[in-house]
């Protein structure tokens, strides 16, 4: 799990470096091409769209930072050999965007992420020396609607039939929706409330729907005429009451920041 963190950071660094490559190429290319050459080479495909995009489809890989502090997290990290970073989730998001204006998009998004780790009981082992082991997983589906505001126009219309995507478009946005979570622990547990410390095997589950709110900021980088590279950071607020397998806990805090890198296609 821990090794994923630097990998994501590396990917982000590469993504953030891309604009320089994208910007640099046309500039150097122009200086070396003559006007005549420019006009005689017929491209296989134009580097602009024949009209404004009417739909965007996005796909992002994402990394969700650990759960915010909550007593369930404190409990399991205290009882089991789990750490907060074990709940760094990986996932993906799919979104559909409908441009409202040159700067405003409405976005419907579906996000899935899952975190989990195997653990042992920190305090006890079996009488015969075996470790007492469990698996813990947290899965989230996030269904949201958002408004996304580009800080500069997303592209430039020239005439009726050409639309040129801007090389780099920073954006911010916000929205809300529904979040479904599934928190599950499977394996052996020590009944520490029993003086005899019996071990039981079980699957403890808490799941359900809750509402969420989110804000985000990101940048779209033009790769081709209809392909954008997207890097984004997002913060989601959500909490949900724990299920009956988890008694006496405060609502689980499902809030947390996430970073995502992906692509966006313009149609």
């Amino acid at each position, binding site marked *: 799990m821990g090794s994923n963190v630097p990998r994501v950071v590396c990917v982000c660094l590469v993504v953030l470096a891309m604009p320089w490559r994208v910007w640099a190429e046309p500039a150097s290319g*122009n200086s070396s091409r003559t*006007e*005549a050459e*420019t*006009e005689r080479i*017929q*491209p296989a495909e*134009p*580097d*602009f769209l*024949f009209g404004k995009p009417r739909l965007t489809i996005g796909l992002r890989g994402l990394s969700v930072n650990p759960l915010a502090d909550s*007593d369930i997290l404190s*409990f399991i990290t205290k*009882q089991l050999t789990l750490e907060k970073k074990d709940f760094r989730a990986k996932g993906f998001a799919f979104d559909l965007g409908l441009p409202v204006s040159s700067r405003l998009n409405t976005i419907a998004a579906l996000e899935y992420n*899952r975190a989990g780790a195997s653990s042992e*009981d*920190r*305090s*006890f*082992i*079996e*009488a015969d*020396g*075996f*470790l*007492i*082991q*469990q698996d813990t*997983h947290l899965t989230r589906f996030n269904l949201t609607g958002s408004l996304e505001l580009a800080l500069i126009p997303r592209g*430039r219309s*020239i*005439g*009726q*039939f*050409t639309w*040129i995507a801007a090389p780099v478009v920073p954006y911010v946005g916000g929205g809300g929706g529904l979040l479904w979570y599934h928190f599950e*622990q*499977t*394996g*052996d*547990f*020590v*009944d*520490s*409330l*029993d003086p005899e*410390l*019996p*071990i*039981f*095997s*079980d*699957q*403890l589950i808490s799941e359900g729907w809750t509402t969420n709110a989110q804000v985000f900021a990101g940048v779209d980088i033009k790769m081709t005429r209809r392909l954008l590279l997207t890097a984004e950071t997002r913060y989601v607020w959500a909490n949900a009451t724990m299920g*009956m*397998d*988890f*008694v*006496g*806990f405060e609502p689980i805090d499902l809030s947390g920041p996430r970073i995502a890198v992906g692509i966006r296609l313009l149609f």
Partner: protein
Amino acid sequence: MRIYFLTCAAAVILSGGSAQAGQRESIDLRWAPWLGCWQLWEEELDTFASADDTGQGALLERTLVCVEPAGSGITMTASEGKRQLVERRIVADGVRHGVVDSNCRGWERSDWSRDGHRLYTTSELQCSDLPTRRLSGLSLLDSPSSWIDIQFVDMGEHHQLEVRRYTAVQAETEASKPADSALEIGQSEIRQARRESAEVPNLADIMEASRHTTPRVVEALLMETEPRLHLDSHALVGLDDAGIDHGVIDLLVALSYPEQFVVEHRDRSGAWSSRSGNGFGRFYDPIWYSDLYPYYITPMGYRYWGSSYNPYFYNPYFYGGAVASPFVIISERSASQLDAAGAVNGRGYTRVLPRATEDRRAVGRRGAPSDSGRGGSTRTGSSGRAGGNTASPRGYSGGRSGTGRRAVPRQ
């Protein structure tokens, strides 16, 4: 262009004769491609068509437009047989020259393009109590034997686009030109000049044309020459930043990506057509014989319209007295919309149409987990969920479903 001048300079040197060379020094060699005689393309069609008809021989060799060098400019004559209809002297010096003609007063100006291959003409004329008439046009060769003349007429609420295409006359026809029209520049030089001049316009040419003349003329230029340019986003931004009319840009895009778009232009009836060709066509029209005729055949903004009425916009001979013109009329409504909107597809001369168109296991909420195969010194749950097991902040609780195993504190 440099090659062209070198060619001409070499020709001057090699031709010998100091007196003749002295005479040629005053000639603006940019006129060389136009020197000679030309016939209106549609009349040429009529000539072929009437060959099968009887009694139409009079149409043969009906008119010629001849261009001869005259000082730093040219003299252009339009003649019908031996009858001279029009004679004009044109100097392309970028200076306004006053015009006094019958009841009309005004000015005209001719400018060369930067490469000397295209001639821009502009004029403004006030005739009697008619609205001021503004002409803006462009002449170019699109092939060594084809001369295109495009003029846009703005007369108050009327707008008209005139596209004339001339072909260089055959040798035997040229032999019939007036005897005093001997050219100081040889035919081979003229042919070479025409070859060098007849280039498909590039983006720079189109941008230049857009600065010199109206968007409708540039549209016609594009329709007649059909350049297929490499239009990428940089080029488009350059065109837009230069203030090029969006209708012109749309047309450029459509011509550059014909697999995506269909381009149509207005014909003289106002209908949209993708076919080329304007003018009379091969049909009988009474204005063929009216005062319009000299104007119809004469390029480069000939200004004569007749003195008493405007033959284009009200023709008493035409059915119902309606608007009649061999050229393309752009209605006042269309024109005003053009002015208001800058460019509206289909409101000008052309219109562009797009072509159509982990789970390790499945468990119920109260299902029994199954896990096996753990190696090493560990062992995990092997029994099903019996119910009542919970976790609380105080710890896990197994209710009554223990496994029988016991835990001991770690050492």
